[in-house]
């Protein structure tokens, strides 16, 4: 078990194994996203209350789920980096942060755009939207802190600590925002909580969520590989690898 983890922590080994994994994840992501999009946009029935605007759910919900998963993944990677000094974990965390922020933004934007036909305004201080907004600020803080340090290692460790602090706080923030929301505007019609969605509606949603996850994994693998090339460029195996690609192409 430990041997495996340490092997996984070696950039060279990770680079080799991820080369074999990433085409599968990219293919799966493209397939699932295409199937889910066509299914959700064209074949799923329209909602009897919201009409076709409900089709935003197929990008809003996966993005929102991913936005949260990315933060947790980032924090877990931060712990692995802080405790076991495994560099790969930090490379992954560095790569996940901007993508998580992008997904948070997608969730916010699609939520606002969905709010217009549903509530009649672009922005409602709805509990979910508000905690998403706060989460976006947390992401931006982690990204900014990492960039603010002159030495990469300090930046990595500081960002890991902040990600950890953030992940402890997210449930507290969510709970307080929910509480605040029920106090200030009771019984609003929430976007996604609805009684018993029919199968034809949630099945494409499931496909989209899986597609987003595959995309996330594929992108993280690819960009972590890039990060390895960047940070380990002085290592011999990277130099040989670069020389090899030069000869081929």
């Amino acid at each position, binding site marked *: 078990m430990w041997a495996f983890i340490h092997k996984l922590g070696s950039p060279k080994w990770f680079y080799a194994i991820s080369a074999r994994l990433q085409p599968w994840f990219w293919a799966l992501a493209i397939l699932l*996203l295409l199937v889910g*999009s066509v299914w959700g*946009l*064209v*074949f*799923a*029935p*329209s909602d009897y209350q919201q*009409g*076709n*605007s409900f*089709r*935003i759910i*197929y*990008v*809003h919900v996966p*993005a929102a789920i991913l936005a949260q998963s990315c933060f947790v993944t980032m924090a877990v990677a931060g712990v692995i980096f802080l405790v076991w000094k495994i560099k790969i974990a930090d490379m992954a965390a560095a790569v996940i942060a901007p*993508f998580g922020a*992008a*997904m948070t*933004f*997608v969730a916010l*934007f*699609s939520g606002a*755009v*969905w709010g*217009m*036909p549903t509530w009649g305004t672009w922005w409602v201080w709805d509990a979910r939207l508000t905690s998403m907004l706060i989460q976006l600020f947390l992401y931006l803080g982690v990204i900014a802190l990492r960039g603010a340090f002159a030495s990469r290692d300090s930046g990595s460790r500081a960002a890991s600590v902040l990600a950890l602090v953030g992940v402890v706080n997210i449930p507290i923030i969510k709970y307080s925002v929910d509480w605040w929301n029920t106090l200030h505007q009771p019984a609003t019609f929430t976007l996604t909580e609805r009684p018993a969605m029919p199968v034809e509606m949630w099945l494409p949603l499931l496909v989209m969520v899986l597609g987003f996850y595959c*995309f996330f994994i594929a*992108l993280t693998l*690819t*960009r972590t*590989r*890039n990060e390895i*090339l*960047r940070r380990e*460029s002085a290592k011999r195996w*990277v*130099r040989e690898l*670069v*020389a090899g*690609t*030069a000869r081929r192409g």
Partner: protein
Amino acid sequence: MAFDSFLALLAMEGHAPYVWSAWGLTAVLLIGSALYARAERRHLLRDLQRRQRRERHAGREDAHES
């Protein structure tokens, strides 16, 4: 199928601006990040190759001088 024609799909019964802007932004961000990752890899490899060539060159000149 929930729509009679392709035009009906585009119109989304009047919800077109909302549905398509949300989907559009998502598509742009996903495709953009995928393309960015690819471009980043190419740039990195090209940079590293250039640096190695330069170093080899510099090494040869050192050899000449000594």
